[in-house]
């Protein structure tokens, strides 16, 4: 029953994620680029810009993250797994992919624990806040949808009863 997604929908989502990542990278490069030039391969150009190689890595990450999102929000996954499981598994897979990218592309020194703590903190904060906002918004919308559907049902019932009498 789900509308079939095509390659253009996927590309649109990838580019949207990539664009968001690039905006954040621009901000970080501007703020911390010079200080972290020697520590991270992401900021090897310092405050003067983002390397083409880094942009390529981020594009790859956007493709994988979008792919993971598509898998866990597919009709098939929705049929066999509750929403909470899907979100948890999606989160685990996304973290795993990001950690692999950090290690493979040396985004920061692997043995530097402070960097890992900061990464975990940033990720957890961003994820926690976004999930909280999304779930509150969703819950409010669901409540309103149910209420309005009930109201419509009653209206239809009255209409039918009116027709009968």
């Amino acid at each position, binding site marked *: *029953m789900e*509308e079939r997604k095509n390659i253009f929908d996927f590309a649109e989502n990838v580019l949207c994620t990539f664009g968001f990542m690039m905006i954040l990278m621009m901000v970080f490069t501007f703020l911390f680029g010079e200080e972290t030039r020697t520590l991270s391969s992401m900021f090897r150009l310092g405050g003067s810009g983002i390397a083409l190689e880094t942009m390529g890595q981020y594009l790859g990450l956007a493709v994988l993250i979008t792919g993971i999102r598509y898998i866990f*929000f597919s009709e098939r996954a929705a049929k066999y797994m509750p*929403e909470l499981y899907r*979100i948890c598994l999606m989160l685990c897979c996304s973290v795993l992919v990001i950690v692999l990218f950090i290690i493979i592309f040396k985004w920061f020194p692997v043995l530097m624990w402070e960097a890992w703590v900061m990464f975990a903190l940033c990720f957890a904060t961003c994820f926690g806040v976004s999930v909280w906002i999304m779930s509150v918004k969703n819950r409010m919308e*669901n409540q309103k*949808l149910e209420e309005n559907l009930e109201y*419509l049902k009653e209206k*239809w019932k009255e209409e039918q009863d009116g027709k009968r009498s």
Partner: protein
Amino acid sequence: MKISIHTDSQAEETEIQITCRHLTPQLEKVISMLRILDFKMLGEKDGESYILDISKILYIDTADKKTFMYTKDDVYESCLKLYELEEELKEFDFFRAGKSCIINLRQIQAIRAELDRKLRVTMTNGEQLTVSRQYADYVRKKLGVK
């Protein structure tokens, strides 16, 4: 094809009479369209034709270029295309839920918004259907949420 219209102010009910040598697919389409005006639909099951009450249809979908109408317990094939039905059934609170599906709003038991902006509806027979993002906003508007 000859079309005759006879007006009679004494007539109690509008009557449409079709005289033909045999039923052609085009004629069947015309009859199906006329049935909709009478809140009925023509459906085929196991080679037999059935007249269905529109309000009893839960949803309509297409598979292998065929159109199927789902009631609580049965599935019937329609000779009309989905886009033709969409137009005709709009006034009966049917809405497009995806490229291949039309849902009867009045047969929705429960509705739930998904995190990815889609809607998941539970029909009165317990079956769950998805309203794609493209059409979900229409339902939200219809329910006064947007």
